[in-house]
């Protein structure tokens, strides 16, 4: 679940606003850290990885009609600091294409960023536990675990926004008798403009009680759908990620197995000078 397909105006202001604030804070911090550590030379790399993720999201696997995200691959390649920046960029471009709301860019960045950072951390942990030769398997397992966690994060977001945010009035038309009705009869000015009209000033008003009991977003049903369909997506993403990481680990291992995971140099006895 690299991004949520919840339209603008469904989640309450405090939730998507908090998402935006947190995202901007993280992006600014990541930007400062990147610039302090002379990561400017990685600007083209950021661009190509973001582009690669966008290209992957635009190509379906025949005939399953599923688009992969490559978030874990991106996380493994970029590390945690640059992952936050790429997550933000990908979500901005996707929002411009109408693929995800503008207000949920913040929340989407948090989910995508979490996926990339978690994927990177789990991959490193699993490679050191298994072996460098099983980088593909490690990436696959890391992907499944990461996607399961971020899907739970998604359900948590819907739960946070769902209880009050969607118990709203739909306005003019009553579908039962096709008559226009006034949904705000219990108090026009008590309606939160951006909070969805779920608050009523006069709590003792019976009509207000009636409104309070209106059905709200079914988080349970949403979770059931997500956890039923999700594992198929996790599996596909895991297989693709394992395939790509395994391929890169074979062809050019230094790209993903650097730092602590790098192959230790073998010293040939009698060649202490390192071949010089």
């Amino acid at each position, binding site marked *: 679940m690299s991004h949520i397909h919840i339209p603008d105006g469904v989640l309450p202001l405090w939730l998507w606003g908090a998402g935006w604030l947190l995202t901007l804070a993280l992006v600014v911090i990541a930007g400062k850290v990147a610039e302090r550590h002379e990561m400017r030379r990685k600007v083209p790399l950021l*661009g190509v990885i973001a582009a690669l993720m966008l290209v992957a999201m635009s190509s379906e696997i025949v005939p399953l009609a599923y688009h992969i995200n490559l978030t874990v691959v991106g996380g493994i390649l970029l590390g945690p600091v640059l992952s936050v920046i790429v997550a933000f960029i990908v979500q901005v471009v996707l929002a411009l294409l*109408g693929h995800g709301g503008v207000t949920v860019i913040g929340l989407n960045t948090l989910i995508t960023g979490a996926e990339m950072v978690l994927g990177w951390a789990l991959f490193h942990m699993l490679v050191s536990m298994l072996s460098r030769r099983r980088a593909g398997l490690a990436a696959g397992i890391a992907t499944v675990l990461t996607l399961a966690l971020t899907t739970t994060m998604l359900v948590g977001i819907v739960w946070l926004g769902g209880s009050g945010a969607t118990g709203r009035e*739909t*306005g*003019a038309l009553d579908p039962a008798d096709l008559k*226009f009705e006034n949904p705000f009869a219990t108090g026009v000015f008590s*309606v939160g403009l951006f909070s969805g*009209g779920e608050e009523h000033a006069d709590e003792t008003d019976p009509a207000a009680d009636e409104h309070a009991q209106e059905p709200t977003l079914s988080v349970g049903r949403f979770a059931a759908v*997500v956890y039923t369909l999700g594992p198929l997506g996790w599996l596909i993403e895991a297989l693709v990620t394992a395939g790509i990481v395994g391929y890169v680990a074979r062809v050019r291992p230094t790209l993903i197995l650097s730092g602590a995971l790098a192959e230790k140099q073998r010293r040939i006895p009698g060649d202490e000078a390192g071949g010089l």
Partner: protein
Amino acid sequence: MHIGAVDQAATLGTSWLHRSWPIAKLVAFALVLAAAMVTWNLLVLLGIVVLLSAAIVSSRVKPGLAFTLAAYPAFFAAVFALASAPDVLSGFVIVLKALAAGLAAVTVALTTPYPQIFAPVQRVVPGIVGDALLMTYRSTFLLLDKFANLMTAVRLRSGVSVGQPVRAARATTQALGGLLLYSFDLSQRDYDIMRVRGYQDRLRVAVHPSTSRAADAVLVATTLAALATSLLWRIAADSLNPYSWLVPIPALFALLAALVSSRRKS
């Protein structure tokens, strides 16, 4: 997603929306998005969708491309609504909100080249983020071309077929792996070229000046009216709700005028 087609429409178009000031379009986008967010009134949302359709018709971009792109978020919103909406009408409203927001985003994207959209964003984000946004734009088209060639090569060798999903997935994965290695080399080469050309601080994009102040004013005023209507119907729903059917009518007239105008020009 049709990233290449979107860029072509934005770059080669000559309509009044293409010539409008990018910042005016971004302001208009924010206003119309706010209008769609504020209201939960089905008819007000319908009015916004019709108004945006009029803008798309008048901009002479391919309506099929615009509506296909906007249908994407609407489809996912329908899945979300199906999974969680409390009733059918709420579900319709959720889908219409997504359609309105999607159409607004697509209208801007189809009439404004990406660097012009990123230019104002670039000024408020850290340098590395702004530069990476522009590099993403450039790299996307290079990689799309490369990926298309790779997939053609895979298909020619019967690597992708509907009847063999495992083989298809493996071929797609290997193509993506190859693309990944290519993208690494590309990024290294790009950086070397940028350094040679003097890249040190940040990439700068100048925003195109306005070619018609009147068109900008019409654009912002119309979207401001849409937001005002949305707010009015939200705040004074008590007295205005019975007249909600009036809201889509001006938008329908605008759509009709745009259709007649586009017929005459073609």
